[in-house]
């Protein structure tokens, strides 16, 4: 699987940090494979639905079913990959 373009991952990190108000998370420390939910970045179900809206707004990718896309939400890498695949389709 080719690496997603740098822009999507970096854009996602910036988006998550600013829009979800993660003041104390330094971008340099925000690993591509850091778990987004529960541990790692520590997001929860309310952040998840906000993230869906942010992905829709900034990448024009719609996430209809939270359950189906659960795997995509694991980390920045998996989410960027998901976004790039949907955009290419």
């Amino acid at each position, binding site marked *: 699987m080719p690496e997603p373009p740098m822009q999507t991952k970096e854009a996602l990190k910036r988006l998550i940090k600013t829009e*979800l*108000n*993660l*003041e*104390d998370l330094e971008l340099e420390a925000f690993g591509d494979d850091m778990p987004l939910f529960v541990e790692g970045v520590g997001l929860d179900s*309310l*952040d998840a*639905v*906000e993230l869906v*809206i942010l992905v*829709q*707004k900034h990448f024009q990718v719609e996430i209809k079913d939270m359950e189906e896309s659960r795997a995509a939400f694991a980390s920045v890498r998996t989410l960027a990959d998901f976004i790039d695949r949907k955009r290419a389709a």
Partner: protein
Amino acid sequence: MSAWIHGLGVVGGFGCGRAALEEALAQGRVQPQSLAVPTGQGIVELPAYRADTSPLERFVPKRALRRVDGFARMALLGACLALEDAGLAPAGNAGTGLILASGQGATGSTLGLLDSFFEAGDACASPIHFANSLHNAAAAHLAILLGADGPCITLSQGPRSMAGALLTARLWLEEGRVSQVLVGCVEELSEVMGYAWLKTHGTLLVPGEGAVFFLLKSTPEGARAELGAVELGADSGVWLPRGASHTQIYGSGPMTPGFDVAAACILLQGQIHCLAEEPGEGFGAVTLLPPL
């Protein structure tokens, strides 16, 4: 049955905490800050008493405040200060009741919610802004962060909101629903409410935002003041001598009745009556007495 005030927490243009309000009352006047209000003619700087909630860092880790909006931060700071004033920690408050009152609610988050779908369509409404725009969101943040898992209610009745909240607090104590309750009122001077103020009063009358919280118990030992009669009704009949209003310290507007009760709690040298009246709408009256 009496109810006793064991702690007072305040935040407004004068700073935060009992000592800051005491000092401000002694000085007699506080210089207002300002609010930048967008209008069709450009930004207007409205003199206003603004609340600074950065002292929250003393009580709650910053990360825990991530989704807590400005309105809820004022409430949280007020509540933490009331607990501190009563010698209690801002955690482990199992069984504590929570009553929050606000005439206007979280208008900052409301506008933030509307912005989210004004910009990008209905499907892009922000769920976090929506959750925060609900009147009872602030009380929810307080309950979670302070561990207050007793009954929790948010009330709204314009300038009579504080009186209504105190009446409810008394009832809960009398009914044995709680042995202690955090009760307060909050009003936020968001951009849109600043605009409304400007349009109604211009810059001559200075508005104020902030929060006032009391920790009430049913026991008198260690109390700062006694909560006497609390009444809500249609017509006060002008039978109560009123305590003073200190608008040169905390401003005019919907938060003033709440601040008046806080000031009365500090200036207590005999009974003080605080009255909030809306012509044609009714009144709320709160009586405070010195502790035993």
